[in-house]
């Protein structure tokens, strides 16, 4: 790591849902990475990783989406993805999908690309060697560990190490942190009642922390958890971890207007 240039050209894969529904997540990622001295690339040809199709059983439909991702990022220095479930899709399933295509070029390209694909907090801690990104976020925050971040990426306490170094933060442990929130992609739609029951458990845990902000490395879980909390007017809001790590004491946006 030390022999490499200290500033990287980071290709941002923003993910389809952050692009469309949560631009603030992407803006915070850009702000954070640039603040740390790196340059950010955004290729507007990007769309989706194919996770929704693949996990719902539409594996054939996911194939061209995967090919597109590989084409776009094959020459990237590093790819940063602010979503652990999309990284899990790429790491856990792309090699097998490519192998099924009887296309050695594609399989090779996937193999070459995978070591350069990072979830945001992995990039910060594992690649940049940072645990303190100089952030300031004076709020009571609880961290939800998404299932893919725990059991596929094995992030462990990587996001928490970053959060513990944030100035002004009042970080409170979320009870039952290893339990799924009930989002599960199309599960939330197809098994609505089950998803709702699981959400009720998670909301209770979040509310018991007394936090005003629930954060995670996946906006998708947060969309579900915060969607439920907002329905109840619970007075808890969501922020992707990038939105917690981006602001500094020099700016007040993260404090007053977040």
């Amino acid at each position, binding site marked *: 790591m030390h022999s490499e240039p200290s*500033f990287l050209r980071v290709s941002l894969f*923003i993910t*389809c849902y952050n*692009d*469309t*529904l*949560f*631009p603030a*997540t*992407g*803006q915070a990622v*850009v702000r954070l*990475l*640039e*603040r740390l*001295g790196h*340059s*950010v690339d*955004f290729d*507007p*040809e990007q*769309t*989706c990783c*194919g996770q*929704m*199709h693949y*996990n*719902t*059983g*539409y*594996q*054939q*439909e*996911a194939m061209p*989406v995967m090919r*597109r991702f590989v084409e776009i990022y094959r020459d990237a220095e590093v790819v940063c993805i602010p979503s652990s479930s999309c990284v899990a899709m790429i790491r856990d399933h792309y090699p097998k999908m490519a192998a099924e295509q009887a296309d050695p070029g594609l399989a090779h390209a996937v193999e070459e690309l995978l070591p350069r694909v990072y979830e945001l907090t992995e990039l910060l801690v594992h690649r940049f060697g940072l645990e303190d990104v*100089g952030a300031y976020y004076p709020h009571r925050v609880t961290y939800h560990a998404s*299932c893919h971040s725990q*059991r*596929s990426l094995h992030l462990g306490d990587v996001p928490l190490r970053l959060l513990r170094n944030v100035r002004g933060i009042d970080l409170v442990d979320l009870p039952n942190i290893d*339990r799924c929130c009930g989002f*599960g*992609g199309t*599960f*939330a*739609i197809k*098994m*609505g*009642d*089950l998803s*709702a*029951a*699981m*959400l009720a458990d998670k909301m209770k845990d979040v509310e018991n922390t007394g936090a005003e902000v629930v954060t995670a490395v996946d906006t998708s879980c947060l*969309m579900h958890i915060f*969607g*439920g909390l*907002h*329905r109840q007017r619970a007075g808890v809001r969501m922020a992707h971890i990038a939105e917690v790590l981006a602001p*500094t004491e020099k700016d007040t946006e993260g404090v007053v207007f977040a």
Partner: protein
Amino acid sequence: MSIRVGESASAPSFQKAALPLLEDAQLRRNIRHATDVIQRKRGLVVAETTDWQELRSAASAIKAHTLRYLDHYLVQFEKACTAAGGQVHWAADADDANRIITGLVQQYGGDEVIKIKTMTSEEIGLNEALERAGIRAHETDLAEVIIQLGGDTSSHIVVPALHKNRSQVREIFRERMNLPDLSDKPEDLTAAARHYLREKFLKVKVGVCGANFLVADTGGVCIVESEGNGRMCLTLPDVLISVAGIEKVIPTFQDLEVFLQLLPRSATGERMNPYNSLWTGVHAGDGPQHFHVVLLDNGRTRVLADPEARQTLHCIRCGACLNTCPVYRQTGGHAYGSSYSGPIGAIVTPQLLDMRYGQSLPYASSLCGACYEVCPVKINIPEVLIHLRGRVVREQKSALDPEALAMKAAAAIFTSRTRFEAAQRLGRIGQWPLVSHGWMRNLPGMLGNWTRVRDLRALPRQTFREWWKRRAKSGSSGPKRKNGDA
């Protein structure tokens, strides 16, 4: 060929079966409590081992090897068992197995059997088959007694009555054992069950059991249990009939070393089961003098033929995946419409039933991966679920199915920048009748399942890519190296 998996022949889909269970507050509390207790115990005894991951890998390797050479090991088991004085029968499906067992009971002149808890007998509906032949089956596992006397069905692979608390057990015993003054103290309930069972143990001449492991090199059948009722059934009757799935075979006696460490810790949070019985053939003047093993296929060879789903057959029925599953936690086992519930049931049942219930069970998971994490034989259940979902889409979905159409449209959108950006713009324009004060609270169609309990923020005025484009034009982009705030 008729394949049955417990009661699922007439069971409703998971979604429908879950609804009344979600309404049952007592059941949900009982399940939360019981699974929390077992998980806590499991966590303690797993943490004290130094080689848990190595044990898991060893078990997975033994199972994979055995399945690869299953034909060899089954025949080896048959030879060894026969040489020891047992008799092996081969059953292609549930009806076959029921016919063989009923015939054996009749041959030995019995009209009653006592049973050790066996999932396989539930899978084939043995009790009902025996009843049709005029033979009464008495369960002897305490939880199975509760289920049988209560006219209920099992809700867990290992602890079938975990959805009942002790006041409910007391009611069942008071009513069915005619004990009006019975208290709900655990020791009184146990004493009542013991009294009820002791009479059966001493009287009934035929015992029926399953098998935790079939040991190929010795021909032995291994059964582990906590209560000692199993030991009674294995020693007191004249005739013992074991019904076991063909995947239960392991190559050698030595392999038990691995499984007998993994199974009790995973199943009940015990270092060792209180009763570990190994039964090999017959021995003059000692225990049952007639010993039969019924080897059951019932769809298993079909699972074996699917390389991606084959690992399903590694299962040693410990139930750890049920206890940790956040979906099972909400409903218990009854929603799964099968004697096999929880995450393992969600992959076993549709496969044994040739993808019947494919449209519901493989989707009864948020793919959180907690099941894979605890599985002592490393079955990657989420991977198998995704594989089965793929089969459902390829084999069962009509091209005109609304979901299939929506997915096709989404795939077309995701493979073109122009279409993707057009869809983003269309969404922003099209959402306006649904948006109130920046939020959507009542979406139409399938998306209505989202807004029944959750709000959805309206699509923002600009997407990320639009923000990026404007920013690039305004020239405010680029790293902030000179600010010195990095």
